């Protein structure tokens, strides 16, 4: 019989091994799944995990898709560390795209060098404002931020849909639901020749570093961590739970909004009814798999980005639906949570249950 025995303190090894084990288990699941679908599993795994990044262009795509994931994951991690559960990043991303797109369309083809910075700022502010709604509802009305932030995802996507179907529709776009294509001044400059990689990556990395400094080196960041680890002690020490919620939500919202602006000003270059293939949800997985730690988040964003590319590649090479990406994403997180048991518990193998009297506390 196997028993779980609580560890006196969390295992430092297990904290880092669990994400690796989860990633490995996901690959094994892929092997089983591809075999079950009558594919040569090794060739399928190669098509999924290796071929997409075997070219210079592919590496560019990997980094391009990892940028919004690490950006949003970093913002969400600030909240998650303090037990503030913002799961509406997908909606905050849409609002960020709307903000950036609004600025780009307002500037028209003036070619002003201010367009791009204004777009990114507007994106971050719009995402932040959208996240302020659940923050206000939580702090003022005690409404559960998980549910309100998620409901706002649907609302945000409908706002975006209305804009591109209605007021912001390209008058020369043959009635397609899309905005005008942004002028060059409103697009992020390319970073790596022969790829689509743009300056969104350095922006994302800068935010990751800034967030790390905030969490590790600022007093406010310290108080946020205490609020997450020991809410009772935090309260006793005078750390305001209201402030914690606000900072946690707004950080996630601003990062998601900035990511939305980067998408609008980057690979997409206009507003479409959908600005993201679920980056806001995938970033939740990035935050967890990355252990809410900046280095981990960057690595996890590369892994999740690879899952996106693998899904596309599987569709082209193997004729499998690209929805397999979502399946792998969910599996990865479930495996991680399952593996996490070894952080706080150790396995004890016993021939049979002993008659030991449990310690009374």
């Amino acid at each position, binding site marked *: 019989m196997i028993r779980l025995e609580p560890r006196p303190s969390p295992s430092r090894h297990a904290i880092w091994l669990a994400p690796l084990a989860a990633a490995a288990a996901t690959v094994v699941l892929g092997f089983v799944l591809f075999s079950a679908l009558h594919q040569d599993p090794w060739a399928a795994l190669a098509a999924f995990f290796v071929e997409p990044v075997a070219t210079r262009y592919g590496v560019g795509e990997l980094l391009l898709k990892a940028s919004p994931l690490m950006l949003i994951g970093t913002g969400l991690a600030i909240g998650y560390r303090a037990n503030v559960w913002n799961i509406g990043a997908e909606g905050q991303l849409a609002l960020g795209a709307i903000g950036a797109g609004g600025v780009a369309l307002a500037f028209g083809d003036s070619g002003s060098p201010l367009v791009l910075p204004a777009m990114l700022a507007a994106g971050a502010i719009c995402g932040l404002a959208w996240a302020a709604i659940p923050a206000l509802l939580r702090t003022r009305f005690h409404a559960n931020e998980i549910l309100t932030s998620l409901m*706002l995802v649907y609302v945000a996507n409908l706002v975006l849909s209305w804009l591109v179907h209605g007021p912001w529709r390209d008058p020369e776009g043959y009635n397609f639901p899309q905005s005008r294509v942004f002028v060059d001044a409103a697009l992020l400059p390319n970073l790596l020749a022969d790829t689509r990689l743009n300056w969104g990556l350095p922006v994302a990395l800068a935010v990751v570093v800034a967030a790390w400094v905030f969490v590790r080196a600022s007093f406010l960041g310290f108080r946020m961590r205490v609020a997450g680890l020991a809410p009772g002690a935090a309260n006793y020490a005078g750390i305001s739970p209201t402030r914690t919620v606000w900072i946690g939500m707004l950080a996630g919202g601003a990062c998601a909004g900035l990511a939305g602006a980067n998408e609008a000003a980057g690979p997409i270059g206009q507003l479409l009814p959908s600005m993201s293939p679920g980056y806001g949800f995938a970033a939740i*997985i990035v935050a967890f798999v990355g252990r809410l730690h900046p280095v981990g988040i960057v690595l996890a964003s590369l892994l999740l980005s690879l899952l996106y590319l693998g899904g596309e590649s599987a569709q082209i090479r193997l004729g499998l639906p690209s929805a397999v990406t979502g399946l792998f994403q969910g599996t990865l997180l479930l495996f991680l949570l399952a593996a996490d048991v070894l952080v706080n518990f150790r396995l004890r193998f016993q021939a049979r249950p002993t008659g030991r009297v449990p310690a009374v506390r």
Partner: protein
Amino acid sequence: MEALAHLLVLTLAAGTPLVFAALGELVVEKSGVLNLGVEGMMLVGAVGAFIVTAKTQSPWAGVVAGMATGALLSLVFAVVALTLLANQVATGLALSLFGVGLSAFVGLDYVSVVIKGLEPVAIPGLSTLPVIGSLVFGHNPLVYLSLALFVAVQLVLDRTRTGLIVRAVGESPKAAHAIGYPVIAIRYATVLFGGACAGLGGAYLAVAYTPLWVEGMTAGRGWIALALVVFATWKPARVLAGAYLFGGVTLAQFQAQAAGVELPSQFLAMLPYLATIVVLAIISRDAALIRLNAPASLGRPFHPDT
């Protein structure tokens, strides 16, 4: 009068998936477990029900399959959150993400398949009576099943020993454990029940309400069901009322369009989500009310040695 009766019938039909999912989640939460995976379980139940219906031509086989697949997915939650003691919020989220991905993946070949869904019962002589006919006798069989489920949940939770044990486990798992109840096993049972109910809600959508499969067809109903349990302050009768209220709101967009309201369709489509947010804020405003009614151990993992 006839028109009002028709509207009531439509409201009941629109609220029924929420009744199933929210009643299931209510039982789960009563036992102290927070499973945020309702949306995922509904979708998997919907796709499972649809595929089996398409293969067997029997919508009832589909309904059973929907319940089974919903329960199977909830078993994943139970293993990770109850046996392996993972954070319930994170596990529920993961389950929803997984369910969305899984249902999209398996359902891809069925997107434009046409099935013959469950039809409303037609009792000769009774269903054609004016007003009463459609109001009492003209519903889909699953609507009656949802009402039966409501009565059963209400009675079992309030009036039986089983209900008392479930509530005890939710209020104080330590005390329940100390007097010898298998806390984890009881929680497994409620989680599986919740999964089957969510699957049933999804099955209702895919084989009765709109007999077709579309990726993400639950459109957030799983999350609304979660909010409903909070609105209802964990009381089954209020879950029922809330579900029909939201069913009515969902209908409002179609009614408004039919009535020629000059509002972009997107704004009407926002109504259920905005209503959820507003009602959740109003109910949650009274923190004491929530604290008093929420199961005391809600969301906390239970391990006998910690």
